[in-house]
């Protein structure tokens, strides 16, 4: 009985798994590359027929369109390239302040959500459910068109403590600007803070190594205070000059001006993302096993130590990766600013397309910008994950 043998020698090729694998490779390669080549041929034909310009040369031409309240120097006579950079700075600016605000608000809302006070916890829940279930664009319209429609005209500006002036043209915030002697104060303060951090680390380590109380928290705070007070006096008691907005003609001058577009986008983006961050933070804290807290209590750690030595280190590992992807979402969502005319990267790109045609290179530029932002983020995230991962059974 040797049917086995004859069978193996005579497998038809369509049943031989080795050959099948090779066939699959070939077929998939042909199909995918065929599709891509077909698309590229179509594209080249279309480009030829319409006489399309595909180079990036236009970036050196004059843009000709204005950008309101540019964060860096910009005139319409400057190039498209410059305009694009202005848009990029605007994107990074609104994302940066948005991320900071969303993180703070989100964490506070999460803590409120976890509060033992029912009213506070319910209010946090309402905040979260409200923001999570309406589209960002609707939220943006509500802030920009509705809330700002209640804002008075320039002559009757709302005055908030600060003073902050709020009117149809934007929010004008009194802003401390460094005087000539102010740099002394700033430098000394920074030195103080750095020294305090270093000392804090050293003293905490010493406390850990020797078991003797080294008063690291009061000493570090004291150090910062001493340095900044010293800086204050060395700079003649006036390191800053408040740049207070004042009415000149039909408009306010000076201070830090947030355009209504920026303010609307900033508020809606921050609050929207804060709701998602709140859920991330709450989930992270709740994910720490109850047994962990019991064990920490049982070895005698006090409430604060349980939180800082056991709960937070574990919660942060869970929180940080989804938190970073929320940051990335916020950055990408800032492109909605287009809808209210805030000139971030995408809006500048769109204006460029409208004016200069050249949709393809502009889109390539926009996509490369966003892609490099998100690749950078996931790169950082991967490094973090590899460093911090622990094995959990």
């Amino acid at each position, binding site marked *: 009985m040797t049917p086995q043998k004859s069978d193996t020698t005579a497998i038809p090729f369509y049943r031989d798994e080795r050959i099948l*694998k090779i066939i*699959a*490779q070939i077929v*998939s*390669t042909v199909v*995918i*590359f065929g599709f891509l080549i077909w*698309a*590229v041929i*179509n*594209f080249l*034909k*279309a480009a030829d*027929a319409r006489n399309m310009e595909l180079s990036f040369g236009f970036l050196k031409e004059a843009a000709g369109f204005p950008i309101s309240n540019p964060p860096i120097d910009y005139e319409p006579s400057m190039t498209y390239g410059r305009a694009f950079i202005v848009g990029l700075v605007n994107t990074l600016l609104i994302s940066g302040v948005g991320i900071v605000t969303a993180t703070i608000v989100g964490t506070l809302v999460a803590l409120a959500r976890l*509060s*033992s*006070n*029912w*009213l*506070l916890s319910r*209010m946090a829940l309402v905040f979260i*459910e*409200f923001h*999570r*279930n*309406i*589209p*960002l*664009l*609707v*939220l943006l*319209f*509500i802030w920009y*068109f*509705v809330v700002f*429609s209640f804002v008075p005209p320039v002559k009757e500006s709302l005055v908030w403590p600060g003073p902050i002036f709020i009117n149809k043209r934007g929010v004008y915030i009194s802003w401390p600007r460094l005087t000539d002697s102010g740099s002394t104060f700033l430098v000394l303060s920074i030195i103080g803070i750095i020294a305090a951090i270093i000392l804090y680390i050293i003293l905490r380590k010493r406390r850990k190594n020797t078991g003797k109380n080294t008063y690291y928290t009061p000493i570090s705070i004291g150090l910062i205070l001493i340095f900044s007070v010293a800086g204050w006096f060395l700079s003649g008691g006036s390191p800053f000059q408040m740049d207070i907005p004042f009415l000149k003609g039909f408009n306010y001058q000076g201070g830090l001006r947030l355009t209504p577009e920026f303010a609307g986008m900033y508020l809606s983006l921050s609050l929207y993302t804060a709701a998602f961050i709140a*859920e*991330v933070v709450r*989930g992270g804290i*709740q*994910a720490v096993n109850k047994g962990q807290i019991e064990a920490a209590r049982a070895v005698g750690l006090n409430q604060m130590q349980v939180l800082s030595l056991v709960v937070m280190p574990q919660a942060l590992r869970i929180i940080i990766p989804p938190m970073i992807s929320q940051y990335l979402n916020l950055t*990408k*969502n800032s*492109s*909605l600013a*287009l*809808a209210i005319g805030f000139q971030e990267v*995408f809006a500048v790109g*769109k204006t460029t*397309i409208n004016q200069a045609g050249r*949709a*393809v290179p502009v*889109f390539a530029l*926009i*996509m490369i910008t*966003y*892609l490099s*932002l*998100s*690749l950078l983020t996931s790169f950082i995230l991967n490094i973090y994950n590899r460093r911090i991962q622990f094995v959990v059974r």
Partner: protein
Amino acid sequence: MAIKEMEQDIVRPPQPPGLVKWIKENLFSSVFNSILTVLLFPTILYLLYLVIIWVLFGANWKAVSQFPLLFAIGQYPRDQIWRVGFVFSGFMFMLGISWGRWSGLLRSIALAAGSFLLLIAVLPVQNPQLDMTMRIYLGSTILITLVGYLIGNKTRLKNAFIIAGWFVIPIVGVVLLAGFENSERIPVVHTTLWGGLLVTFLLAAGGIVLSFPLGVALAFGRRSSLPVVSGFSTVFIEGIRGVPLVTLLFMFSIILALFLPVESRIDRLVRALMAVTVFSAAYSAENIRGGLQAVPLGQIEAAKALGMGNFKTTVFIVLPQALRAVLPAIAGQFIALFKDTTLVVIIGINDFLGIGRSIINSDPEFVQMRTEVYIFMAVVYWIFSYMMSLASRRIESTMGIESNL
């Protein structure tokens, strides 16, 4: 308060009654909490009072109440409106049948939709668009739903037919709404006239239905042992996840045509749908891939040991477990997709939000009522996406899935 106990040893120490106990534990458990409660309670009451006063007396809802049809279907020609009605009734009929057959969540949806229609049908207001014909139509749609329920519940209609119905109705519906060239009875209605909730639902439902299989395909593609397939899937997924949806919408509306043969022309609404679908698929793919990774190797080995081939193992063992594990994430993705459909206003499609904006901009009088209009839109979007999240939580709990977030 201290009640002397008769038997110290077995009677529980005096407990305040339920409500008092609840208030003490949840509002006044510590000094800090008590202060918080004393501060928060009047603030909340005052805010509620302001909101109620504004909704009832302060607000002018004219811009909202005057155009119910516009909000529902946009500029769809009014003499062709029966086509929308027909398609809607078809859906309600299918919903009725499914309710009768499977009950559960479908029952809640059918009841919610039915009572909403009933409410509108008997609403005691004068509105030219809510005339007798419309009210009769709404009433008969409720009847059709109930007939569907009876058919689903009492007859032995095969499940396969019901599922097939869910595939047929949308296809027939879209064809009917679009119309036929050279037809007198059913002329073409160009998609530029489509709008309102009709478009929002079309984009959301279409996006969900199409992006899901694409997402599954991409997830398997990325895990494939064929380098070309996995490379292509990876680049596709990461490329799309790396850019905002607005970019994709513009890409598909401006640039897509360049990559297709010159003679092909894709409808603008379809292009928007493609963008939404592709965007959602990339995110779903990553969720599903996470689920695939979570399926224990032992499951696959067990299936193979039972003599199942690769394909059967995947379809019957791996995929169901993977999808079950990531159901909360997928549901979240679908809700996000529903909310993201609003972005099509940026490329000039009049979805629900777009209709609201055009009403505001159509008349200086309505500009003054934009607060009311935007609040109305927010409420409508909120209700739909909150119901979606309730539904997903319910499915999760019946399936015994624990979601952390």
